[in-house]
């Protein structure tokens, strides 16, 4: 369905080469797609999440009738056309209100999917003090809770958030560029068996803070204090789909 374009000048040739597979990959672009039942809340949350990931985002404005767990071909087409390997679909119905489905692609085909439902106690960026950080900075991450090391769904969530909000992988980092932190926390799973029903899975608390440094007792190391800048989201874990083993192996094939 997608036309293969033969480059007619150097600029189009460069654009095509940007999309080719490389050893060191580009930063992943995220595509935000409103589903058929998307509402204003989801739109605002999408805007906030997109602000964290600027400029590597694309937002669709029109609603699209897509059910990812049944038929993901439309999403694969979007991924290929826009060269985005992470898609966020926003839907809302009675059974699953305020749902965000995060889909990752490998070679423009669905790799894994997870549904995270935003609970009603969310807070948008505009509800916090107006503190912003420079666009395009690399965030710091904290993952709190043993479940992120043991439970496969939460390992998936950790991988997803790291993948999404990570900036460019660099070896050198300017210390003054460390300005904000994304913090993801979850309590321990109650039962010891992993076959617990989905509703018992602990809530994932997503917080974003800005750093404030103060002088401290030690000369070179500052005392760190946090100011919440939002968005503040509590996710309820919904359905998920893991990658097929061969695809997983190919995607994890590292060249470092």
């Amino acid at each position: 369905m997608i036309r293969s374009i033969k480059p007619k000048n150097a600029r189009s040739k460069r654009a095509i080469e940007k999309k080719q597979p490389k050893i060191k990959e580009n930063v992943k672009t995220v595509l935000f797609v409103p589903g058929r039942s998307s509402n204003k809340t989801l739109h605002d949350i999408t805007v906030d999440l997109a602000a964290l990931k600027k400029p590597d985002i694309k937002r669709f404005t029109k609603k699209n009738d897509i059910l990812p767990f049944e038929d993901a071909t439309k999403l694969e087409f979007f991924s290929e056309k826009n060269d985005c390997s992470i898609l966020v679909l926003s839907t809302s119905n009675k059974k699953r209100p305020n749902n965000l489905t995060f889909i990752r692609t490998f070679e423009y085909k669905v790799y894994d999917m997870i549904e995270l439902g935003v609970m009603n106690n969310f807070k948008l960026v505009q509800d916090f003090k107006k503190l912003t950080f420079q666009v395009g900075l690399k965030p710091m991450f904290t993952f709190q809770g043993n479940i992120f090391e043991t439970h496969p769904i939460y390992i998936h969530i950790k991988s997803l958030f790291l993948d999404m909000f990570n900036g460019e992988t660099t070896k050198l980092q300017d210390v003054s560029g460390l300005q904000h932190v994304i913090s993801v926390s979850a309590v321990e799973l109650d039962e010891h068996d992993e076959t617990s029903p989905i509703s018992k899975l602990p809530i994932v608390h997503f917080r974003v803070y800005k750093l404030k440094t103060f002088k401290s007792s030690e000369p070179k190391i500052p005392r760190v204090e946090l100011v919440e800048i939002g968005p503040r989201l509590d996710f309820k874990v919904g359905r998920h789909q893991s990658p097929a083993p061969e695809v997983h192996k190919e995607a994890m094939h590292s060249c470092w």
Partner: protein
Amino acid sequence: MSDIKESYVSTKPVTVEKAIPVTYDLGHLAVYDTNPIDPIEIGKDENSKNDYLQQVTRDNVQLLINQILHQPLTKNSTTTNTDSNETPITLVQLPDPVFQLPREKPVPKAKEPTKWELFARKKGIQKKGKTGKLVFDEEKQEWVNKWGYKGKNKELDNQWLVEVDEEKQAAGSPDELIDPRKLSRMERKKLVKKNELQHKRNLKEGK
């Protein structure tokens, strides 16, 4: 009032005690804390819950910052600045990330060497690069390009007097009345075309 607060904060420590030590993933600027999150605190009202989460996060971020600042530094002068004084910025060297993230596209397969590359490798021929481009012109006593812009291979094109080559333009051959300059240009263009054909062939074989 704010002074007292500032001095109070300045004596606060930068060390953090944790029951289970945290794991650092500095390649991703991440810290993984396996200490259990207190479900009682989470079950409280919104404000207490968020204060608790902020407190736990602050401790972890403090540990992360401590770890980052212990990494080796490199001082780089900002060469992208347009003003004359280059301000040196200190950069921290980060190690490779620990947690592996999936790729978005497969690893590109290595390109097959072309016929010429195999031949050159076998014969030990090295690429000349830009070193072989200049040639000393005895007449003008200066260095000129061998090929390319104002190359020596094109000097025949603009000569006002050209000798007729006896072999190529013999009395009865079809090339007799054609300008020798034109002939030399046609030969040059033929070589270019041949090279493009070989390039196309290489690309096809490479696929």
